[in-house]
């Protein structure tokens, strides 16, 4: 029984990877990550690192120059984390949106459901497989850039690796929305639009304190608060990522656990609806 579950999970994860590769999602993200790594490798060798090192060696202001390079590395890490968190997240959502409607295509879903696999198992494995595809690419990009910077500057800042965890975490939250929209509407377009809209409104909703001061009616203040507390806090988690990468003190973890709770509820709803649907 346990071994059958493992075999089936392995088959479903492998299928998600194969489909991601066939849809050029995996290779697209991989190619983009490689291009970014090569870009930093090239920039550092020619413009930044060698120039900074030369300055250190010639002028002998070792301590100051080391701090400069450290600041430069942290700044670059922050920029990459921000890029990954915003543009990379959009690309990941866009690339993953078709994987759930693809699974539900007539002629494919009947065969999958006729196998001795539970419906929840089927959907959760798809969800997990999708996260693994994005996690593999995120890890490749972050570790690649980290190694390039560390090798060139000899400044190894492990805090940068937090970007993997926070990016994959936010992706898993948004993916729960992709799954729910995919199960209900079977539309890749809607499954892209709604998570992206959530990302766009997040920085606006995060200005909660300012908005509450500015809004005139109690009703609108309550709606703003309700939206802020209920929806995923992409902007706050992004700020947390930057604090972690820059080694700044981090605030409370409310954005993380409330976003995780949102994902659990949305994914739970998707699982219930999927289990009850006829195909």
């Amino acid at each position, binding site marked *: 029984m346990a071994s*059958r579950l493992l*075999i089936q999970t392995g088959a*479903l994860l492998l299928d998600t990877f194969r*489909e991601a*590769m*066939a849809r050029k999602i995996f290779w697209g993200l991989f190619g983009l990550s490689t291009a970014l790594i090569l870009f930093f490798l090239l920039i550092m060798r020619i413009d930044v690192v060698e120039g900074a090192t030369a300055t250190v060696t010639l002028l002998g202001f070792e301590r100051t120059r080391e701090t400069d390079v450290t600041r430069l590395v942290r700044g670059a890490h922050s920029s990459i984390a921000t890029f990954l968190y915003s543009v990379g997240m959009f690309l990941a959502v866009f690339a993953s949106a078709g994987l759930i409607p693809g699974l539900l295509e007539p*002629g*494919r879903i009947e065969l999958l459901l*006729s196998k*001795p696999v539970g419906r929840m198992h089927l959907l959760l494995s798809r969800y997990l497989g999708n996260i693994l595809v994005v996690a593999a690419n995120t890890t490749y990009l972050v570790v690649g850039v980290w190694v390039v910077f560390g090798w060139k500057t000899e400044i190894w800042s492990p805090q940068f690796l937090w970007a993997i965890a926070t990016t994959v975490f936010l992706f898993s939250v948004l993916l729960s929305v992709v799954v729910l929209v995919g199960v209900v509407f079977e539309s890749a377009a809607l499954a892209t639009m709604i998570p992206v809209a959530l990302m766009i409104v997040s920085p606006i909703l995060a200005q909660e304190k300012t908005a509450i001061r500015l809004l005139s009616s109690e009703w609108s203040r309550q709606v703003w608060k309700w939206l802020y507390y209920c929806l995923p806090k992409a902007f706050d988690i992004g700020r947390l990522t930057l604090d972690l990468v820059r080694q700044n003190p981090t605030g409370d973890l409310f954005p993380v656990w409330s976003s995780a709770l949102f994902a659990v509820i949305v994914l739970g709803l998707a699982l219930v609806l999927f289990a009850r649907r006829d195909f």
Partner: protein
Amino acid sequence: MTVNSNDCAVEVRDLVKVFRTRFRRREVRAVDGVSFQVEPGTTFGLLGPNGAGKTTTVKMILSVVHPTAGGASVFGHDSREIAGRLPIGYLPENHRFPTYFTGAGMLDLYGGLSGMDSRERRRRIPELLDLVGLAGWGDVRLGKYSKGMLQRVGLAQALLHQPKLLVLDEPTDGVDPVGRVHIRGILQRLEEQGVTIFINSHMLMEVEMFCRDVVIIHHGKVALRGKVKDLTGSKGFKLSAQAVPDRLRDDLQARAASVAARNGSLDFLFPTIEEANAAVDLLRGEKCLIEGLAPSTSTLEEVFVSTVNG
């Protein structure tokens, strides 16, 4: 066709499915109290016109569609349980295998989903590809397969985990005549091995040739059930003769169930062999040329049409 429910390969009990449209909540009663049993080791055909509720019934047996009322079991297990789907191999109609797979890759995925370990899959996949006549095609992407080849690899997928019950939806759809004979041969061997074969098909001649039991569904209800040999049993004896004088023709027409003229010959249908022999004596007495005498049976198509047309 009634057996102890624990001994049934498939048992369908008062199955009802009502679909409701999303917004107007209009009800469509696709299946309306269908009950039947399929004996283990038999070949069973589920027939019916388009929209009769056949595919919905099959989907409820496979738990792809949830019944509104009633239930189905497979070898004693509720079909909604995972154990109920373990012994099933299924080939859907209009299947859509992901084209990014090779034939062997697709079989590997579905073998894994059936719980087969990798060693068993590696052993069975070449065997199955060979069985369905696709040896050498395992490493070719499914996008390059013809419709008939996809049907064959689909059959291989259904057989991979050695199921006790094979559910086939239009199994020879898109397959050329040679391929059909090949598939029929495979199914006959499986029947000899004791595999229960459940066919949902429009191809009545094939069902007649292959199935032992049939159920005809019409308007969501069971309209007719029985053994193919009983349903298509003798309806009389056909006597064909040439140069029959008018007087004798009128005499025989009064005795026969029907008379049909064909290219200068007359075909008389007599209800019993004795009446047919008496007619032969009369025809020989008039020196008529007897072309043939043979038992006449109804085709499944005739049974189907008369059932559906009431």
